[in-house]
């Protein structure tokens, strides 16, 4: 009898397991990725690296696994910084499970618990994201609910605490006297074209959205009276008709004294709008932005790129070549007025200028200035941006004469023949290094930059690519007088030349050598060569990159958020794969 029951049990178990396993396995997928970046540092007197500060090796690595089965998904990410590479925050040092989540979404309702990445609108009041190359992760650990009650309507709610490196997710946890607040937010988005059937295929497009976010953080200050609940709200609108589209978002934040805004009790504003026109072969977009006291962090004492609740997107052109990207703008959350115009045009094939393949042209201009600040009453006196006061008054449309940044550039991209391809760009740059990088007293960078990038296809498998770049400063170059005490501020200043030669064998190999030369630095000892050699091997989704040489001091920026990279010399290796 017992044997029969056991057998029956086994059969039921097997059948149900089979059924279960079938549905479980039929739809289940496991995927993931790994990446390791390592750098071995060496002494190099030529570029003033005479002490490694006890760090010979930096290793940043992560491994992530995702599991999905129909409407269910879950994942986790391990991270290891043993120790972190130079230029990354020292708080990253360590190993652990940095991120995990479980999520269910059937189209009507979606729920996620764990670490959440999301954004409301363009992120002016809420955005959590992760950027490996910056060592940045402000994920919200908590819960999220998404509801889609009818076609075109999406409602979202989030609740949790943000990641701060390896600090445990407790209220009082930062290892010193700092607290980290709770973040709560709701967002609604209504797309009229999807929800109203008569508009489904209309040329006219419209969607609306609104969000509300609040943070709750204990007041730990014995000096200021810090508001424990700080809320922010935003409204957005997207309109389109045929080839024209317009979108705008406005955000408001109540007073939120913090280390970033020097503890002023002023409210914050942000406005971002864009207007674009496009048709086959031609596209143009104009964007404007105003930011006024909009840093929003879940720890008001924070001063660096951590625990940001919102994201203020920079709208300037993102350069990717070596010299053009040397001076990259980073967002000034305390105030900026920005405008940007981008035009793309393709001269059609078969015309005199278009040739056989057409010629692609692009023009971009962007400029950022400060906002205008007027003093406000404080007691019987007037005060300007003074801690503990209302800070300043600012007229909404007034633009300060103080220019932070300007970039005017023009690019030609041309396939000359079956085997030759050319890209060339000219850039005129104005970069207020004192404001953007905090080098007090340093003269503004005014420079002309040009590059050409030529590719020659030797045959079906092999190609050669040559990059030539130059950066010429208008004022700071050889002969510019630099005081002995200020020398350090001129480490990367003056004129630069850059050349790169790359030989690639499709699909696996690429070899390159490059030299970046600060030949026109006003300080003679900084006129260094930064020579590097790189070998890359790619196989399907695996990439191995080994490079050796010198890396110049610089700034790595993604999305207006930057980290500085100190000069180094040595060998670096990157291995990444996904499956």
């Amino acid at each position: 009898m017992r044997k029969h029951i056991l057998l029956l049990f086994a059969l039921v178990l097997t059948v149900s397991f089979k059924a279960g396993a079938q549905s479980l396995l039929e739809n289940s997928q496991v995927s993931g990725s790994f990446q390791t970046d390592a750098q071995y540092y060496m002494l190099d007197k030529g570029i003033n690296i005479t002490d490694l500060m006890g760090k010979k090796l930096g290793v940043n690595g992560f491994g992530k696994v995702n599991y999905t089965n129909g409407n269910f998904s879950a994942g986790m990410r391990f991270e290891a910084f043993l120790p972190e590479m130079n230029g990354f925050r020292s708080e990253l040092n360590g190993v652990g499970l940095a991120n995990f989540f479980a999520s269910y979404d059937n189209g009507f309702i979606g729920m996620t618990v764990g670490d959440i990445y999301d954004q409301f609108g363009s992120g002016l009041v809420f955005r959590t994201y992760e950027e490996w190359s910056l060592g940045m992760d402000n994920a919200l650990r908590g819960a999220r609910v998404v509801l889609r009650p009818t076609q075109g309507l999406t409602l979202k709610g989030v609740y949790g605490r943000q990641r701060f490196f390896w600090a445990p997710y407790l209220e009082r946890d930062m290892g010193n006297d700092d607290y980290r607040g709770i973040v709560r937010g709701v967002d609604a988005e209504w797309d009229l074209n999807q929800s109203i059937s008569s508009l489904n295929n209309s040329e006219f497009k419209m969607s609306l959205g609104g969000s509300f976010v609040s943070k709750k953080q204990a007041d730990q200050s014995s000096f200021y009276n810090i508001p424990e609940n700080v809320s922010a709200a935003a409204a957005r609108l997207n309109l389109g008709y045929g080839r024209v589209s317009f979108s705008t978002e406005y955000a408001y934040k109540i007073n939120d004294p913090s280390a970033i805004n020097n503890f002023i009790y002023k409210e914050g504003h942000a406005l971002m709008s864009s207007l674009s026109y496009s048709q086959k072969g031609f596209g143009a977009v104009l964007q404007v932005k105003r930011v006024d006291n909009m840093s929003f962090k879940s720890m008001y004492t924070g001063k660096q790129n951590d625990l940001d609740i919102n994201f203020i997107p920079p709208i300037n052109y993102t350069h990717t070549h070596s010299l053009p990207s040397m001076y990259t703008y980073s967002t000034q959350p305390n105030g900026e007025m920005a405008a940007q115009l981008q035009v793309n045009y393709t001269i059609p094939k078969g015309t005199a200028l278009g040739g056989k393949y057409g010629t692609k042209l692009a023009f971009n201009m962007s400029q950022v200035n400060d906002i205008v600040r007027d003093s406000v009453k404080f007691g019987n006196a007037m005060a300007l941006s003074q801690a503990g006061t209302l800070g300043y008054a600012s007229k909404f449309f007034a633009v300060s004469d103080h220019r932070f940044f300007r970039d005017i550039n023009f690019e030609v991209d041309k396939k000359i023949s079956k085997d030759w391809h050319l890209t060339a760009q000219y850039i005129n740059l104005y970069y207020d290094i004192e404001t953007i990088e905090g080098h007090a007293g340093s003269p503004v960078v005014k420079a002309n930059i040009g590059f050409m990038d030529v590719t020659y296809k030797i045959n079906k498998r092999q190609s050669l690519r040559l990059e030539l770049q130059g950066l010429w400063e208008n004022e700071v170059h050889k002969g510019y007088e630099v005081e002995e005490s200020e020398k350090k501020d001129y480490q990367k200043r003056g004129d630069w030349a850059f050349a790169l030669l790359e030989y690639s064998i499709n699909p696996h190999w690429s070899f390159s050598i490059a030299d970046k030369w600060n030949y026109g630095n006003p300080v003679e000892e900084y006129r260094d060569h930064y020579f590097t050699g790189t070998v890359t091997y790619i196989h399907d989704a695996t990439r191995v990159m080994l490079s050796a040489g010198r890396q110049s001091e610089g700034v790595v920026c993604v999305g207006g958020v930057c980290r500085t990279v100190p000069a180094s010399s040595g060998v670096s290796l990157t291995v990444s794969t996904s499956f």
Partner: protein
Amino acid sequence: MTLLLMALMVTGLQAQSKSDLPNITLKDLNGKDVNISKLSNNGKPIVLTFWATWCGPCIKEHNALNDVYQDWQDETGVKIYAVSIDDSRSTAKVKPMVEGKGWDFDILLDVNSDLKRAMNVSNPPHTFLFDGNGKLVYQHTGYIEGGEDDLYEEIQKVAKKK
């Protein structure tokens, strides 16, 4: 009996996965929702290629793909979706760039990097090829001059299978 059970279990375990296209909703350039798991191309192959307006090699790859896209479509019926991972700093630039460069692909916007995370893309460009049933058959990271020829070989293999 045990053997039978084992056989049953093995057949259960051998069941093939249906589709590798994740259940994630993105928007197209008209703001319309597109659920990736529901992408279909009448049994013909689908290519998803991750790119960004600020990614040089991606633009090179797209220019190269665009030159041959019409031929590829005629020969294999393949459909290319170019997934932009531009975030709010540059989403407004996507449409003018795509139109200005004259690309013919379907463009999807992954503003919050949801699909990028789900498909484990570390760095663009990253290209995925799915067969007519949504099964992932090939993926490749990076772009080297001529890389489109290898992608096309894979597409032809998949198209022939049908």
